[in-house]
């Protein structure tokens, strides 16, 4: 294993006693606890860590945080493989494995780098201009293009970690744990408010962790650690480290992801990440700022780095990011960093400052050290390929917008850039807040807020530490204060030394030093200044067009380091101000979020509740095959050993027609309707009349949408003077209940009716067949089952198998039938009692499939099966159930031109030669080749045991007038054609005699 040759001997926040081994691109390395993958790679002198998206240019580490545009890696393998992580954010752990993405065969030798050679052919939007001929070739071109695009690879195995979610309310949410955020949390916390402080880094401190600033007599880091201890001691404060607030939604709803154990390698089976769903009464955003680079030719070479990052590598990670450095920028920061570099033993070649008059404390200190300050100069280009070898420096003209004088070459392997700061306004902007442009600071600042949010510190354009501390505390105090929390004995402001700073001079674009040079604006997407100029030339000069045409800011880094330059350059080209050009939209997530954590535990068995009836256990033990009806599992059929579906269903049907069958009907929706106006209410929601239903009687009802289309059906019984009991279809239960409440509360509040859903209170079984009465009589007590005493469509109470039951004589099979309902917890006992006595009757459990065959033989509709929301009662031939004497929901719609057409699709029976799939289409005139005119479709089709042939139900245009005609069912999928005769939909027992047993 190689020595960490760029590691400093002392200082920084790494633990040199804890060595961690890791592999990068298959090679072993060593780092220390506290390292990120990026700092460890730099410590080991690894320069090329990635290839760019389009031209596959070699790239190194550019930043020290989430803004990293280059160093994307694939982490782990197998079930822990994760694509596209920023090496600058990956905390090192022992055994970590990482590899560069988007290169082949290796990051150092990448075949695709050929793209860089022909980059002249690949300007922004080149694909819109070519690959059009020959027409059929695009598909092949596309394959190649797709291979070249993309970054990391999707894992090959399912994830072996788990994720969870959590809701949390708080008074004040503080996002960002730098000096501003810490101060805010302290102030709010001391007032007794419920506070959450979240920061995406491993430790609190923010910029203090890397910039060596001091507060009072202590280092900034010590101050942060002290604050952390105080916060941890407050009952109502929760500090969440490694937690990124990534989305700011309506009504102060903020989503955050906490990386629970990624830094420990997230062992299999453990909780890896947690989604926090925060509802905050007040939010303080102290999200800091991101340093901007400078733009010049070949500014993407490994060794070019943001100045603050270089500083962080030294102060926080004890890594010397290079041996010989040049600094280049437009503000004081480069001078401060020059001092840190020099202190760390880096040879500082020169500080190149575009400002003609570089003054201020830091500049003076640099000069004092004997470091050359090249004021009024700019870097024209970088030298080297896989590593930086030097830079070319030119003097600027007086206005600072062009070059004057000769190129001077400086040798270096590190170039630190600072083009100013971009406040991290992402979350503020997501919250709906407006941005204002600050000419002074050349950046957008939070303006008018739309939600209960304030912004403090660098995120608010306050870049000096003293201001950050003060503004943070004020924001925390004010947020808590708005909620009535008062800080007692607010401490004095902390003393911070603050030097004189020179003003920043924005420079977005300088003329090219030579034609065809590439100055990268968006490093990730390989977008250059020329690309932006081309886009503008071609008319894509709206910022939103520019973004999409060039793909600026569309990579995983979302243009953190490039967007402001793109904007500045575009404004320059258009000759307009930056605010006139405007930003593109900030969208969640702030940084990419794994699907897994958004899914949480809502996968596998917890993906969606499985609803089971009281009898479910029995069905399962009896080998039922289930079908999903909404969330319910319903027995579809009950095969016996060795029996296929067809045979099982046939057997079940025969049992119902000749003996007795039992069905679990518990899933039917059930609604208690009570009140003096109940009948009036039913009259309005059903098509038929409910005026004359006697107590103890049941009636079938059909419900329409206000558009006149059949919506649901079911049997309703009158249990008492003012008490009705409605049943609905299983799938429609919730919808009907909601629908009825809606009408009652919103349209007819004058009706005295109460609705209570009792679907789950009752377990219901239904028995049908000639032996149904005899079977029931063995179990029923206190109910006279004789036909005369208990006729069809009557409901009675009594005991069945010793259990209080409600028995109704109804039938969906056309046979003599009863529904027996008991309190759900007795459902299984009831069912088992039937099984026990049923042995003598060959009682056969049947599933939904047999039920469908049986009801289809009788021509009974199944709503949602034979109807699809476009069918009226008239279409179904059910005018008999539509009252002419009263208004009801949907009635007026039946009198519209289209619903009165006589050639609408009618519900009819079909006798097909062979069984056809449901959904098969019907034609009157068959043609050998499509297209042909369809006149309807098969809604239900079964092999009928009772009829000894296949039967079907269908919706056919003018069908009732066509009874007796033969139509054709072309089954193009199976390559056959079936003829069928149109009939009445009632195939079996048309007189309904069997109902009476």
């Amino acid at each position, binding site marked *: 294993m190689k020595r960490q040759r760029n590691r400093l001997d002392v200082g920084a926040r790494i633990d040199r006693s804890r060595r961690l081994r890791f592999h990068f691109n298959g090679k072993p390395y060593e780092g220390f606890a506290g390292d990120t993958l990026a700092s460890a790679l730099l410590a080991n002198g690894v320069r090329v860590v990635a290839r760019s998206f389009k031209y596959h240019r070699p790239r190194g580490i550019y930043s020290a945080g989430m803004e990293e545009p280059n160093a994307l890696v694939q982490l782990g393998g197998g079930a822990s493989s994760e694509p596209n992580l920023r090496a600058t954010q990956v905390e090192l752990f022992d055994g970590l494995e990482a590899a560069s993405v988007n290169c082949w065969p290796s990051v150092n030798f990448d075949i695709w780098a050929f793209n860089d050679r022909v980059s002249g052919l690949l300007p922004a939007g080149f694909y819109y201009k070519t690959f059009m001929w020959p027409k059929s070739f695009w598909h092949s071109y596309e394959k190649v293009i797709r291979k070249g695009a993309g970054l990391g690879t999707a894992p090959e195995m399912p994830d072996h970690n788990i994720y969870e979610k959590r809701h949390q309310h708080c008074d004040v949410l503080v996002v960002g744990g730098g000096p501003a955020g810490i101060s805010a949390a302290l102030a709010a916390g001391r007032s007794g408010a419920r506070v959450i402080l979240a920061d995406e880094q491993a430790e609190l401190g923010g910029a203090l962790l890397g910039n060596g600033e001091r507060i009072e007599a202590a280092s900034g880091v010590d101050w942060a650690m002290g604050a952390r201890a105080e916060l941890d001691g407050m009952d109502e404060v929760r500090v969440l480290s490694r937690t990124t607030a990534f989305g700011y939604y309506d*009504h102060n709803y903020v989503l955050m992801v906490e990386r629970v154990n990624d830094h420990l390698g997230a062992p299999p089976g453990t909780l890896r990440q947690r989604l926090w769903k925060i509802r905050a009464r007040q939010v303080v955003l102290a999200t800091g700022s991101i340093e901007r680079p400078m733009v010049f030719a070949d500014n993407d070479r490994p060794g070019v780095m943001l100045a603050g990052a270089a500083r962080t590598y030294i102060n926080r990670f004890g890594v010397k990011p290079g041996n010989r450095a040049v600094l280049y920028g437009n503000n004081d920061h480069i001078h401060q960093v020059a001092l840190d570099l020099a202190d760390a033993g880096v040879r500082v070649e020169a500080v190149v400052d575009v400002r003609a008059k570089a003054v201020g404390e830091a500049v003076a200190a640099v000069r004092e050290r004997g470091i050359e300050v090249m004021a009024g100069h700019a870097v024209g280009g970088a030298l080297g390929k896989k590593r930086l070898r030097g830079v070319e420096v030119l003097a600027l003209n007086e206005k600072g917008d062009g070059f004057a004088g000769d190129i001077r070459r400086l040798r270096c392997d590190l170039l630190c850039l600072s083009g100013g700061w971009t406040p991290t306004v992402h979350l503020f902007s997501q919250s709906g807040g407006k941005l204002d442009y600050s000419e002074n600071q050349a950046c957008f600042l939070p303006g008018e807020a739309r939600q209960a949010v304030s912004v403090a510190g660098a995120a608010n354009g306050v870049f000096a530490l003293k201001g950050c501390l003060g503004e943070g505390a004020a924001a925390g105090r004010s947020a808590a204060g708005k909620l009535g929390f008062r800080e007692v004995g607010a401490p004095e402001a902390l003393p911070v030394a603050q030097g004189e700073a020179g003003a920043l001079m924005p420079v977005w674009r300088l003329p090219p030093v030579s034609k065809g040079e590439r100055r990268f604006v968006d490093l990730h997407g390989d977008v250059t200044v020329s690309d932006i100029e081309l886009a503008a030339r071609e008319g894509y000069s709206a910022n939103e067009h520019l973004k999409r045409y060039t793909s600026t800011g569309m990579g995983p880094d979302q243009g953190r380091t490039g967007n402001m330059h793109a904007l500045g350059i575009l404004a320059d080209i258009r000759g307009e101000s930056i605010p006139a050009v405007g930003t593109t939209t900030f969208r969640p997530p702030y940084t990419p979020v794994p699907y897994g954590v958004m899914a949480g535990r809502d996968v596998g068995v917890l993906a969606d509740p499985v609803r089971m009836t009281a009898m479910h256990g029995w069905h399962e033990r009896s080998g039922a095959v289930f079908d999903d009806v909404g969330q319910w599992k319903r027995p579809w059929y009950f095969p016996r050993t060795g029996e296929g579906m067809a045979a099982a269903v046939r057997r079940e049907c025969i049992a119902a027609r000749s003996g007795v069958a039992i069905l679990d009907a518990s899933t039917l929706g059930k609604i208690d309707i009570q009140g003096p106006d109940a009948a009036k209410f039913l009259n309005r929601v059903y098509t038929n009349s409910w005026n004359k239903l006697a107590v103890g009687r049941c009636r079938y009802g059909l419900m329409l949408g206000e558009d006149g289309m059949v919506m649901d059906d079911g049997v309703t019984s009158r249990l008492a003077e003012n008490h009705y009991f409605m049943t609905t279809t299983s799938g429609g239960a919730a919808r009907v209940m909601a629908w009825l409440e809606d009408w009652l509360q919103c349209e007819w*509040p004058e009706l005295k009716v109460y609705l209570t859903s009792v679907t789950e209170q009752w377990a219901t079984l239904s028995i049908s067949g000639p032996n149904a009465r005899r079977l029931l009589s063995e179990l029923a007590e206190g109910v006279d089952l004789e036909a005369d005493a208990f006729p069809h469509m009557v409901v009675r109470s009594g005991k069945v198998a010793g259990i209080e039951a409600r028995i109704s004589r109804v039938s969906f099979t056309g046979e003599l039938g009863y529904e027996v309902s008991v309190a759900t917890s007795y459902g299984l006992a009831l069912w088992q009692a039937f099984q026990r006595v049923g042995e003598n009757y060959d009682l056969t459990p049947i599933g939904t499939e047999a039920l469908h065959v049986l009801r289809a033989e009788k021509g009974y509709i199944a709503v949602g099966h034979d109807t699809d929301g476009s069918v009226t009662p008239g279409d179904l031939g059910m005018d008999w159930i539509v009252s002419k004497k009263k208004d009801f929901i949907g009635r007026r719609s039946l009198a519209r031109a289209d619903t009165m057409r006589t050639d609408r699709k009618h519900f009819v029976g079909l006798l097909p030669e062979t069984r056809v799939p449901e959904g098969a289409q019907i034609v009157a005139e068959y043609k050998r080749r499509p297209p042909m005119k369809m006149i309807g479709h098969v809604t239900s089709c079964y092999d009928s045991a009772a009829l000894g042939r296949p039967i079907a139900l269908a919706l056919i245009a003018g069908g009732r007038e066509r009874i007796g005609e033969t139509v054709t069912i072309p089954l193009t999928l199976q390559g056959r054609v079936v003829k069928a005769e149109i009939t009445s939909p009632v195939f079996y027992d048309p007189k309904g005699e069997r109902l009476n047993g």
Partner: protein
Amino acid sequence: MLRIECPHCGARDEAEFSCGGEAHIARPKEPDKLSDAEWADYLYMRTNPKGILAERWCHTFGCRRWFNIERDTVSHEILRVYAMGEPRRESGT
């Protein structure tokens, strides 16, 4: 996720509610007297403003009660919560 103030239960997450669309659409008293077009107006035509909309919500997973709110369809700000049956505010307010 919107935070909606149920008049009965207090502020709850949007997930507990169902949205019923535009409020104050009264069912015509005598549908038969309406032309097809007038009926279609009741059935389908909606004011769909960019700005303040009076709409109905039901606290489905709470108290199951319907109520009205005024909400800005651009900012999503909820300006007013009021009972079912209470009239809409005069326009311009």
